[in-house]
C-alpha cells in the first residue's frame, strides 16, 4: 500500500471513530487501533526511506486555499509517535475511563480522542499555513474538551480555562506569524523549503518561538502545563505530555528548517532550553502531587530537546555540521524517547490514581505489594526518564551531551554556550534522578500511609498492556540505538539538506548498544545470582530496623516535603515555598502540623500581578459602559466632534 | 616572566574567592593580607631593579600585608566579634557571583582595546575581578570590619590596574594612596572600638538611624 492510501485509511478510521465513539466503545477501539496502525505504517515507510516524501495537492478550495499535504521525514517522525501514543492511549482508556465508571463522559472522551489524533495528524501533514492554523485551533479545542472531561470538579474547569487562555495567546502569535509569512511571500499561504531563500522572513522566527513555545511548555511559557496535565484524565495527560507538547516542538523544528533564522536564534533557544531544564526539574522535585511532578518533568525534557535544537541552530549559523548534527539527532531522538517513557509514567500514575483515588504522594506508599506490575513498569520508566543507561533516555541525552562537548572542543564561539549548558544539563540530570527516586519510592515503597492505599488493586490487562508495550519500546531503543541512526539521519537531512549524511553513524551508537546489552545481561545475572545466594544462605523476614525502635508506624516514613527539603532549599528563591505551621504547644500537645505548598511562581508572582493590573485598568474603563442611552449618544457626538476637529486641522495645514 | 606574573595574579584571584567564601573574620583578613603581599611583590617582577621601586614594594608589603591586618585584628578583638553571621548576600551566592564575575572579567578583557604587551597577561581580568569582589563584600556584608576588608580588596584591584601603567605613573601616587589607606584603617579601628562601646554592636545596618 502506498503512503497516501495508508493515510486515507488512518483518517477514515478516525472519522468513523468520531461518528461511532459515543455509543460503540469496542468498535471505536478497533477503528482507532487500525487507524493508528495505518498511521504508524505510513510514517515508517517514509522514515525507513521507502519513499523520500509523500506530497499531495488537491485541486479544490478549502477556506479559499487549495489543500497541500506533505509527509516528509520530519512530519513522519512526529506522526509515528502520535500513532503509537494514540493507539496506546485508546487501549488504556478502555478500562481506565470506561462507561461503567464514567457513564456521562466516556463517550465524549472517545469522540474527542479521535478528533484530537486526527487534528494533530492534520497539523503534521499540512503544508498550507491556513490549514495548519485550522488544524492547530481544532486540536487545541479537542485537547481542551479532553482535559475537562471531568468538568464537575472546579479545579479541572479552571485548569481547562488556563490551558485555553494560554493556548490562545500562542495561537495569536501563530496567526500573526502565518499571516506575515503569507504577506511577505506575495500572498501565498503555501509552506515549504522554498521559504528559506527569503531573508526577510528571519525576524518572524521570534513570533513562531513564542507561539510554538507556549504549546511546547517552554519555560517560562509553561504556566498552563502543570495544572492541565495534573487534572486531566491520565490517558489524556499521557497524550498531552507525550505528544501535544511535541506539536510545539514540531513547529519549531519545522520552521527552523524552512525559514531563514535570525543570528541570535540559536543562542536564545539553547539558553531557554538550559534554563527550562534546570528550573523545570527543580519545580518537579518540590511537588507533592504525583502527576504534577510528572508534568513539571516534561518542562525539563522539553528543555533538553530545546538544548539540542538550539545547539543545531547555533552550529548551522557557524557552519559546524559535525557537532550540530549530533545535538540535533539527540533532540530528535529525545522527542520519541520522552513521548514513550512519559506516557508510560502517566499510565502508571493513572493506574495508581484509579486504584487509590489520590494523587497526593504523602498519602500513598507501599503499593508494590498490591500492584507489582505497575510498580515494576513505573520503575523502568523512572530509570529511563532519569536518563540512565541502559535505557532509551540515556541514548538521546548522551547524543546531546556529545554535541555540546564537541562544540566545546572546537573552540568556536558556540562553545561559550555549549560548556555552561552541559554543566547545567548535568545538574538537571542529577535532580531528575532525585525527583524520580522520590516519586517512585514514596508511591511504591515503604508502608501504605492510608487504609485505602492498603487495599488497592492491580490494574487490568487493558491498562497493563499499553504500559508493557511502551516499556518494551523504551528497552528496545536503549539496547539497539544504532538501528535508529538512519532514521534520525534522514530527519536531519530533511531539516537542513546540507547536513545529509551517508556513512556509518558518527557517534559510536553500535558500541553503546553493545555495552548496554552486556550491562543489561550482567545486571540480570548478578541480580539472579545475589537472589539465589541470599535464598541459599537463608532469608528471614523481620521489621525494618529503626535504631532499636520496636514499633515503627507508616507515619514515621520520610514524606515528599522532607525528601525535597535540602535541594528545594537551594532553589527557594525560585520556588517560593509557602508553609503554614502550627507548632505543638504545652504539655501533651494535641495538634501540630506543617503544610507546604509550592506555588506556580511564574503564574502567581509574575503573570498574576500583571493580569490583576490589566483587570484594574479594564474595570476603570468599563465604567464608561453603563447602559445609559443618553451617554452613548453623548459619546457619539463627542467622537464626531473630534473627527470634525481633525478634518478641520488637516484642512488648515 | 609573564608566566610567573600570571600565576601570581591567578593566586590573587583565588584569594578573592577565599575572601568571598570565608565566614570567619580572621580568614577574611588573612586572605586580604596575603593578597596584599602577593600584589606588593609584583612590581619587582615587572621592572628592572631600582631603589625607589624596591622601597615602595617593601612599604606596600609591610602596610598591606602586616600593618593593616594587625590593626584590623586588634579592632576585631576589641569589638569581640569573629564572624559575619547574617550576610546580606550568602556565602555560596557570593562565591558564585565572584566566580561568575571572574569569568566575565576574562571575557571582557578579551574585547577591551589593550596594549599589545598586556593582551596575554591576566592583569586586567585580575583587576576587574578584585574590584568586583570588593563591591560584593561591601554590598553583601553587614559588619564594619568585613566591609573594610572589601574596601581594601577593591583598592587592590585598582592597584592592579595601576600596574598596567607602571611605566607612566610615578609610584609616588601609589605611595600616597597607601598612606591614606593606613590612616583610614587606623581611624576605622578607633571608630569601631568606640561604636562597639557605645552601641554594643558593629552591625552597619543599625547605623542607618544615626542621622545628624
Amino acid at each position, binding site marked *: 500500500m502506498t503512503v497516501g492510501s495508508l493515510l486515507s485509511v488512518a483518517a477514515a478510521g478516525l472519522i468513523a471513530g468520531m461518528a461511532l465513539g459515543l455509543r460503540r466503545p469496542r468498535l471505536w477501539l478497533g477503528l482507532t487501533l487500525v487507524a493508528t496502525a495505518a498511521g504508524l505504517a505510513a510514517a515508517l515507510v517514509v522514515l525507513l526511506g521507502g519513499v523520500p516524501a509523500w506530497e499531495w495537492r488537491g485541486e479544490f478550495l478549502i477556506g479559499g486555499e487549495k489543500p497541500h499535504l506533505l509527509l516528509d521525514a520530519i512530519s513522519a517522525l512526529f506522526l509515528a509517535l502520535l500513532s503509537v501514543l494514540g493507539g496506546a492511549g485508546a487501549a488504556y482508556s478502555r478500562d481506565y475511563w470506561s462507561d461503567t465508571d464514567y457513564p456521562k463522559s466516556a463517550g465524549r472522551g472517545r469522540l474527542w480522542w479521535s478528533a484530537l489524533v486526527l487534528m494533530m495528524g492534520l497539523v503534521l501533514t499540512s503544508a498550507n499555513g491556513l490549514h495548519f492554523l485550522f488544524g492547530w485551533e481544532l486540536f487545541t479545542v479537542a485537547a481542551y474538551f479532553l482535559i475537562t472531561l471531568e468538568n464537575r470538579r472546579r479545579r479541572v474547569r479552571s485548569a481547562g480555562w488556563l490551558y485555553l487562555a494560554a493556548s490562545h495567546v500562542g495561537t495569536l502569535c501563530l496567526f500573526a506569524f502565518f499571516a506575515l509569512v503569507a504577506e511577505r511571500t506575495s500572498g501565498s499561504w503555501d509552506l515549504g523549503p522554498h521559504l528559506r531563500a527569503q531573508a526577510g522572513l528571519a525576524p518572524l522566527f521570534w513570533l513562531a518561538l513564542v507561539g510554538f513555545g507556549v504549546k511546547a511548555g517552554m519555560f517560562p511559557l509553561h504556566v498552563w502545563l502543570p495544572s492541565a496535565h495534573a487534572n486531566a484524565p491520565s490517558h489524556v495527560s499521557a497524550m498531552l505530555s507525550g505528544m501535544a507538547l511535541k506539536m510545539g516542538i514540531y513547529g519549531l523544528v519545522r520552521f527552523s528548517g524552512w525559514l531563514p533564522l535570525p543570528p541570535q536564534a540559536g543562542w536564545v533557544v539553547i539558553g531557554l532550553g538550559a534554563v527550562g531544564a534546570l528550573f523545570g526539574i527543580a519545580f518537579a522535585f518540590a511537588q507533592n502531587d504525583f502527576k504534577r511532578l510528572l508534568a513539571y518533568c516534561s518542562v525539563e525534557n522539553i528543555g533538553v530537546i530545546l538544548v539540542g535544537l538550539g545547539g543545531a541552530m547555533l552550529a548551522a549559523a557557524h557552519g559546524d555540521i559535525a557537532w550540530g548534527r549530533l545535538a540535533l539527532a539527540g533532540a530528535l531522538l529525545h522527542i520519541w524517547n520522552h513521548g514513550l517513557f512519559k506516557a508510560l509514567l502517566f499510565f502508571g500514575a493513572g493506574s495508581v490514581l484509579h486504584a487509590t483515588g489520590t494523587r497526593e504522594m504523602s498519602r500513598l*506508599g507501599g503499593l508494590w505489594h498490591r500492584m507489582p506490575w505497575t510498580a515494576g513498569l513505573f520503575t523502568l520508566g523512572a530509570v529511563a526518564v532519569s536518563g540512565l543507561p541502559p535505557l532509551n533516555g540515556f541514548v538521546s541525552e548522551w547524543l546531546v551531551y556529545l554535541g555540546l562537548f564537541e562544540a*566545546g572542543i572546537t573552540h568556536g564561539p558556540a562553545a561559550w554556550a555549549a560548556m555552561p549548558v552541559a*554543566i547545567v544539563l*548535568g545538574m538537571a540530570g542529577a535532580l531528575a534522578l532525585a525527583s524520580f527516586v522520590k516519586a517512585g*519510592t514514596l508511591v511504591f515503597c515503604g508502608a501504605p500511609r492510608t487504609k485505602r492505599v492498603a487495599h488497592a488493586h492491580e490494574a487490568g490487562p487493558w491498562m497493563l498492556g499499553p504500559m508493557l508495550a511502551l516499556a518494551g519500546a523504551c528497552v528496545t531503543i536503549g539496547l539497539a540505538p544504532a538501528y535508529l541512526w538512519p532514521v534520525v539521519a534522514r530527519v536531519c537531512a530533511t531539516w537542513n539538506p546540507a547536513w545529509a549524511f551517508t556513512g556509518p553513524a558518527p557517534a*559510536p551508537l553500535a558500541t553503546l548498544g553493545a555495552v548496554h546489552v552486556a550491562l543489561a545481561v550482567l545486571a540480570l545475572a548478578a541480580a539472579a545470582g545475589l537472589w539465589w*545466594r541470599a535464598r541459599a544462605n537463608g532469608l528471614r523476614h523481620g521489621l525494618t530496623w529503626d535504631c532499636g525502635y520496636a514499633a515503627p508506624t507508616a507515619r*514515621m516514613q520520610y514524606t515528599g516535603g522532607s525528601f525535597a527539603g535540602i535541594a528545594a532549599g537551594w532553589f527557594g528563591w525560585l520556588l517560593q515555598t509557602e508553609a503554614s505551621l502550627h507548632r505543638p504547644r504545652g504539655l501533651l500537645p494535641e495538634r501540630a502540623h506543617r503544610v507546604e505548598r509550592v506555588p506556580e511562581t511564574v503564574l502567581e508572582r509574575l503573570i498574576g500581578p500583571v493580569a490583576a493590573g490589566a483587570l484594574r485598568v479594564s474595570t476603570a474603563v468599563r465604567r464608561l459602559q453603563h447602559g445609559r442611552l443618553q451617554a452613548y449618544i453623548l459619546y457619539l457626538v463627542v467622537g464626531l466632534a473630534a473627527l470634525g476637529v481633525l478634518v478641520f486641522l488637516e484642512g488648515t495645514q | 616572566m609573564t608566566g610567573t606574573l600570571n600565576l601570581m595574579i591567578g593566586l590573587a584571584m583565588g584569594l578573592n574567592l577565599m575572601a568571598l567564601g570565608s565566614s570567619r573574620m580572621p580568614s577574611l583578613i588573612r586572605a586580604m593580607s596575603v593578597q596584599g603581599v602577593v600584589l606588593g611583590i609584583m612590581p619587582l617582577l615587572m621592572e628592572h631593579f631600582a631603589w625607589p621601586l624596591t622601597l615602595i614594594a617593601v612599604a606596600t608589603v609591610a602596610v598591606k600585608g602586616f600593618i593593616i591586618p594587625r590593626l584590623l585584628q586588634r579592632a576585631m578583638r576589641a569589638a569581640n566579634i569573629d564572624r559575619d553571621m547574617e550576610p546580606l548576600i550568602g556565602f555560596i551566592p557570593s562565591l558564585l557571583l565572584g566566580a561568575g564575575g571572574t569569568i566575565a572579567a*576574562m571575557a571582557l578583557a578579551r574585547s577591551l582595546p589593550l596594549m599589545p604587551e598586556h593582551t596575554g597577561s591576566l592583569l586586567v581580568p585580575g583587576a576587574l575581578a578584585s574590584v568586583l569582589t570588593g563591591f560584593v563584600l561591601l554590598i553583601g556584608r553587614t559588619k564594619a570590619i568585613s566591609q573594610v576588608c572589601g574596601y581594601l580588596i577593591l583598592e587592590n584591584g585598582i592597584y592592579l590596574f595601576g600596574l598596567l601603567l607602571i611605566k607612566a605613573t610615578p609610584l609616588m601616587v601609589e605611595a600616597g594612596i597607601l598612606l591614606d589607606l593606613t590612616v583610614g584603617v587606623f581611624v576605622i579601628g578607633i571608630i569601631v572600638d568606640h561604636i562597639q562601646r557605645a552601641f554594643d554592636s558593629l552591625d552597619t545596618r543599625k547605623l542607618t538611624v544615626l542621622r545628624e
Partner: protein
Amino acid sequence: MTITILGFALRLALWLLLAPLLPGLINKVKAWVAGRRGPPVLQLYYDLARLWRKGVVLSTLASPGFIIAPAVAWVALVGAALLLPLGPGGTALSFRGDVLLMIYLLALARFCTVWAAMETGSAFEGMGSVREVSYAVLTEAAIIAAVLSLCVHTGGLSLATILAPAAGAGAALLAGGLFTVLLAENCRVPFDDPNTHLELTMIHEVMVLDHSGPPLAAILHGASVKLLLFSVLLVQAVIPLGDLSPLAAGGALAGGVLVVTIGVGLVESLLARFAFRQVPFLLTLAFLLCLFALLVAWKGGAA
C-alpha cells in the same frame, strides 16, 4: 581474540581484587596517625567473605528490589571502572563519549542504592537518601566541569585520549576539585564519617542500615570499587602517564593511587566531619575549582 579476553579477565580481576585494599589502607593510616595498631589491611576481604556466607534479614516492607538493586549497582560500578584506562594497560573498550557513559553508570549505581534504601520505609534511610541525591547535584556539576576541562584541553572525547596527556596548567585546580569530589562521592570525612554510628549524621552508611548478608557484601565491595575508580581517575587526570615509559607509568599510577589513599587517610585523621550546612559550600568550592580548570584549559587552547 583469546588475548583480548585474557586481558579483559585480567583487568576485571585487578579491579575486583585490589579494590577492597583501599579502605584497609586508609584505616591503617588513620590508626598510624592516632598511634594505634588498627585492623589488618585485609580486613574488608575478611568482612566480605563473612558476609557472603551469612543469611539475609529482609524487612517485611521491602520488595525484591531490595536485593536486586545492590546487584545492579554493583554491575554499574564495575562497568564504570572497566571503562577507565589503567595507565600503560590501556583500556578494555574505548569509544567517543565513553566518559559520559562512565558518569551515568555512577548515577545508575546511585539510583539503585537510594531506591533500595527507600524500600524499607525507615526515616533514617530516608535521611541518607535525601542527602545522597541532593549533594549529587553539586558533585555532578563538578564532575562534568572537570571532564569537560580535560576534553577541551586534549581535544578528545574518550577516557583513553583525555587521561593520557598532561593536564596542563589547570592540573593543580583539577586535582583539588577532583579530590574533594572523591571525598564527597565516597562519603569520606569532611562529608560523612564511615566509622560513626550516629545515624543522624551519616549519608552513605545510613542508607545501608537494613542490608545484610550477600547484598551488603555487594554494596561494600561496590563502594570500594568506586573509591578505587575515583582515585585512578584523579591520578590519571593529573599525572601525564601517556608521556612516561610503560613501566614508569604503571609505577606512577600505583604510587599515585597510594598517595591519594594516604591523603584520604590523613584528611580523615586531621579533619572533623563538617556540619551539614557547610557541605554545599565545600562542594561549590570543588565545582569552582573544576570550573576554573575548565577556564584555564579553554584559555590554553585559544592561545
